[in-house]
């Protein structure tokens, strides 16, 4: 019984998110008759894929006790790399590899600054947030490259034949499964949690803390670049301002997913649920023509309450139990 309760409380956040998700679906359905249509779901997930991909690596990084604010800028930089390499007549497959390599390199720079110089990742990636975005603008200005081959752009907006499942979503599902297994089942996942909980103790237990962090930084760069390739395909245009400001969106998804901002706690399942809660809410509001910025009231409030709610509940609970205790001891006297 006790064990069951503990298990429940360990997963209560995910349970709450499932409830939130169901509420979102009910709400969406009541707001717009188009919400529960397969076509809408298809378009919605298509528009979420880039954020979804970046959320995966962001989850790992935050669990390891760091943060990467530069993800959206790396995305922009990768998008620009796709553009200029394609313009230069380099074949598409090589463009993709170059974009991924540049993304990884950007992540590597973040990681080296954090691990080798011992700088706080919050500040480092705040700096590279500006730096990488700036480089993207320096390289491509505010032009756009659009004449990508249709095979590539079709990947961005096309569905699996005979269904309404976007190819990009298939990519995300595969990645998500991989990440869930890696984080929750593999030794490296366990090491990530250990590092986020107590970096020093992890090091003393023979975990190569710096290497793991460096790996996560590179991974974050790589996935952000992948998201950039997806976004470039989806809107068939490589631009320096692609995904401007998405970093906050990604962090919101991860935090709402129950990942502790100080590291060490949370699960990917929660993050994926949170992704669909936020995506669903935005989509539902968009369907009744609420503008994105007003949608953000809901998102922001949800984010605050995701931490505030449990805190308040806990305080009320402890206050109640204290009162009960006081009443009890008074009776004893």
């Amino acid at each position, binding site marked *: 019984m006790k064990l069951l309760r503990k*298990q429940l409380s360990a997963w209560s956040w995910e349970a709450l998110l*499932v409830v939130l998700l169901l509420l979102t679906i009910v709400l969406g359905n009541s707001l717009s008759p188009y919400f529960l249509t397969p076509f809408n779901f298809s378009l919605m997930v298509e528009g979420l894929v880039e954020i979804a991909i970046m959320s995966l690596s962001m989850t790992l990084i935050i669990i390891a006790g760091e943060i990467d604010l530069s993800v959206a800028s790396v995305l922009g930089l990768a998008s620009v790399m796709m553009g200029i390499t394609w313009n230069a007549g380099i074949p598409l497959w090589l463009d993709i590899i170059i974009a991924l390599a540049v993304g990884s390199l950007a992540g590597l720079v973040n990681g080296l600054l954090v691990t080798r110089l011992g700088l706080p990742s919050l500040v480092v990636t705040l700096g590279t947030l500006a730096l990488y975005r700036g480089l993207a603008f320096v390289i491509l200005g505010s032009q756009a490259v659009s004449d990508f081959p249709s095979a590539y752009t079709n990947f961005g907006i096309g569905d699996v034949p005979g269904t309404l499942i976007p190819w990009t*979503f298939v990519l995300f599902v595969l990645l998500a499964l991989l990440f869930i297994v890696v984080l929750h089942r593999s030794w490296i996942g366990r090491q990530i949690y250990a590092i986020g909980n107590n970096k020093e103790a992890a090091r003393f237990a023979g975990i190569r803390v710096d290497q793991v962090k460096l790996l996560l930084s590179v991974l974050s760069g790589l996935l952000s670049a992948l998201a950039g390739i997806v976004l470039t395909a989806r*809107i068939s245009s490589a631009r320096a301002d692609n995904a401007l400001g998405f970093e906050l969106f990604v962090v919101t998804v991860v935090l709402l997913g129950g990942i502790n901002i100080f590291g060490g706690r949370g699960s990917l399942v929660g993050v994926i649920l949170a992704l669909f809660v936020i995506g669903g809410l935005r989509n539902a509001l968009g369907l009744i023509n609420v*503008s*994105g910025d007003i949608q953000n009231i809901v998102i922001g409030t949800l984010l605050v309450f995701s931490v505030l709610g449990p805190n308040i509940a806990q305080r009320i609970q402890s206050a109640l139990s204290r009162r009960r205790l006081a009443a009890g001891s008074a009776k004893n006297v």
Partner: protein
Amino acid sequence: MKKLFQTLGAGFLVFVLLLLAACGGGTSTGTGGTPSSGSNLNIVFLPKAINNPYFDTAASGGKKAANELNGSFKQVGPSTASASEQVTWINNLTTQHVSAIVVSANDPNALAPALKQAMAQGIKVVSYDSDVAPDARTVFVNQANSEDIGRVEVQILGKQLNYTGQIAILSAASTATNQNTWIGFMKDELSKPQYKNMQLVKIDYGNDDDQTSFNDTLSLLQAYPNLKGIISPTTVGIAAAARAIESVNKGGKVALTGLGTPNQMRKYVKDGTVQQFALWDPGKLGYLAYYAASALIQGKITGKQGETFSAGTLGTYTIGANGVVLLGPPTVFDKPNIDQFNF
């Protein structure tokens, strides 16, 4: 750990299952919404950004047309000029099966796939103000002949400067189709012999952001002390530039012209910071765009060259090459005439 996959089943799979349900329906469900009937004019405007007085004026024109035609009018869009956000909006509108989308593109190509998808769902697409790729819309309602706009602005400035001195251009986003076409014609006009003493020293992109345009103008003035004139072919840019010039007391010393709305520019025309600027009436643009969209919905036109349609008080318009409908020549505003306009 087992719980992990159980919760996964409870939550994540709900979503995936819904998607899989979609497969069962197959692609045919996509068109399952209400087919757009001729009487049902559900037309939505999607400007570059929603809080821009220029587009607000255009929207009021659209609303007027909607009243006349007994149709519905809505305007949605991003708060900052962003192509990818416009894509999201197009997707939202496609899902809702509106009857027509009237769009001003932040990027002609970025919007194309989404618009094509919308067209595949039977939604009519009209572009106004800033065109998209021609195959992603049926009709483009052009506010003015691009060549006219580009050349007129250089001519106005040339006259004011006596055809001598350094000039700069303060544009919007460098991807904006209309801006680039105009700038192209400006450069062409400048290459004529009478402008040989005028040098274009810099093209600056203020991104249709007030603060950026303001600061950029100040930087231009500092960095090019001999600058004599600025052309800003964007309503946001010219207003910001006028204020910037005035704030450093260079009014009258640095000539400014471009495209602006009379209400925004009235103060500066009256105090002499700006002598002349041009613009078409955006209200009429919106009005015409709405009529074009409704004609498409009702099947009166298909976008072929030579077709004609009636646009209420504006009279009858003919579709030109590439599905372009031209609103008419721009109006030049100056101190004597500016009080006749209110938009």
